[in-house]
């Protein structure tokens, strides 16, 4: 379990970016972090990963104090996928890119090969081992960034706006992958602006506003409260909108919406 207590972060000791964030993320959860641009979402995930250090506060992973941990320490536990994969990919081949973390973590040759193979299989990149990462499409780059994070066999995967710049097809593939990793037991921390993704996939949603934690609950709790959703700069998911239009009550996902529509059609018959 990942615990954050009273995490503060500010630029130049005056512009507060995160203000007393206290949060618990449980094993196997998909936790979405939402909020306006500039609300502190990415900063929070970077602090969890050790890329940035909080001004004060306390962080714990299981029983270990990780408040002052650096990314190299955290890489064993957490995989981080940046919003723009171009800023993350640096190796000359797909294989080298994915093998980097396991090599750095001291895996032996066989283990490196095995973890690279597993990560590439999981992300559907098998066969592209010798390709240059820079020559891949945006969608494949994003999947490669995920594969690189997976190769270190983390328990937690942080995805920072993974669907930005992706078309609807690639978006579906990425979300399916995320779901699969979660079903295999991985905890997912997902930063996103996409309310449909939150409604459909997240177990819990955390909303930040100007560095303050303004909401921590289930998607149903959030989206049932339209006024709060809008006040936090968010919007209702499409399924909720359409469900209201058809007087079907709260439908978080298209699947629920279709199910309720079908039930109503049957009852009319």
């Amino acid at each position, binding site marked *: 379990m990942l615990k954050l207590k009273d995490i503060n972060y500010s630029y130049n000791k005056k512009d507060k970016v995160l203000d007393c964030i206290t949060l618990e993320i449980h094993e196997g959860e998909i936790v979405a972090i939402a909020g306006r641009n500039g609300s502190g979402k990415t900063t929070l995930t970077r602090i969890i990963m050790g890329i940035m250090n909080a001004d004060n506060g306390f962080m714990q992973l299981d029983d270990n104090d990780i408040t002052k941990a650096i990314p190299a320490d955290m890489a064993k536990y957490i995989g981080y996928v940046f919003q723009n994969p171009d800023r993350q990919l640096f190796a000359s081949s797909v294989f080298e890119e994915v093998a980097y973390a396991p090599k750095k973590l001291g895996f032996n040759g066989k283990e490196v090969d095995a973890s690279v193979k597993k990560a590439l299989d999981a992300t559907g990149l098998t066969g592209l081992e010798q390709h240059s990462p820079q020559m891949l499409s945006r969608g494949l780059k994003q999947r490669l960034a995920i594969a690189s994070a997976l190769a270190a066999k983390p328990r937690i995967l942080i995805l920072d706006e993974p669907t930005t710049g992706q078309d609807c097809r690639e978006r579906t593939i990425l979300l399916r992958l995320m779901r699969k990793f979660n079903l295999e037991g991985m905890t997912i921390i997902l930063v996103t602006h996409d309310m449909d993704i939150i409604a459909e996939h997240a177990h819990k949603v955390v909303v930040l506003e100007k560095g303050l934690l303004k909401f921590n609950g289930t998607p149903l709790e959030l989206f049932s409260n339209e006024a709060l959703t809008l006040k936090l700069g*968010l919007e209702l998911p499409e399924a909720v909108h359409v469900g209201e*239009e058809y007087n079907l009550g709260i439908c978080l996902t298209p699947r629920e919406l279709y199910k309720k529509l079908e039930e109503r059609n049957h009852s009319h018959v």
Partner: protein
Amino acid sequence: MENKTAMNKNQNEGSLRWITITTLLLAIGVILRMISPSIGGISLNWNIVMYCLAIMLCRPTPGQGLGIGIVAGLVATMTSKAALPYANLVSEPIAGYLCAYMASKRIFDFKLVNVNVEPAFMAFITTIISGGIFVTVTKVIINLPINIYLYAMLPTVGIMAILGMIVGQILYKPANKIFNVSNNEKNKNKYTLNHMNLTINKGSFTVVTGVNGSGKTTLLLTIAGARINYFGGIKNSKLIVNDIDIMHTELAELNHQVGMVMADYEGQLVTETVGDEIAFSLENLGLELNEILKKRSQVLEMVGLSGLEDRLITSLSGGQKQRLAIATVLVVDSSILVLDEPIAAIDPEGAIEIYSLLKELNTKYHKTIIVAEHDLKYISDCVTQLIVLDNGELKYAGTMDECLSFMYHSKVYAEAIPLKSKIYLELGDQKC
């Protein structure tokens, strides 16, 4: 997946590729010219054939063709055994320029009995131009008798042109395989926008959708005057935007008429403060200070950023940065505004703001707006024309309802249809 990789590879190849290929082929040409036999005083002019091949492989601009011709002329002058080698300095640049012009317009890009005969035509005509000018200059300067010019020199040029035609046709295919491995005809079509017959009316709001790689950005760049000719450009297409025939208008004129906000709009912002950013565009136009200040405050009001002149750009939200990028292109009086996925990294509130701003620019200020977009749920209030592209081709252009219906029934990027519209389409007449 492999195609996608190849496509990206093409996209990332360097802009100096044409120089590399031309230099290599010219060097090969010099060697071949020195070692090839001369039969009855006539030998193939390898120089011309080689730069002609290089031009067909790389499709440089006529200006770049002129550069190739000058280098070829210098090489020929140094290696030629002709009576007046310096005539090459006149003949080759002109031939290089015209060859590149013909290649860029693809004048001879057609098939005879299922064989593309462009290499033969290009090599023949370029040799005739170069040889013709060469012998004419030689005749005039050395003052050779007209009979030698007419009955010896010109026929020699003709024979060399026929030889060049044969060799050019034979060599083009293997050369294309070697140098354009990933840029062959098959992949080129992936890049080429094809059958793009599109009219975008003055004052309309057009949204272009399609999977990544379908040609949205290529279309927008073409409209904005950054035409991509490198991979063969746009074929069989007619693009009319605001009564401007895009394919037949100078790029500089398009740059003036069309303002573009790229997908990575932050890369477009180059100064520290909001005020400087707007002033930067106007200073480049050479406007007076008073004029700059007046236009700046007008445009900031248009995009809702009034009073933020002194704000650091880094302190703006994503939506505000996007609005600033829009302001920088509006301020130079562009009548057409082109935006590539303007809300991709923006929060929902910002996304709604951006689209209401674009709607206002469209209705109140009569700007023609063209947007590439995946997320179609925000556009229903403003769009007048929705276009779907697939594989470089325009599949449908019409009202939003018509286009979504086409996408749904033809399964062309149906994943992008907003849930609400999808249910309407599925339920048909059973709407509530």
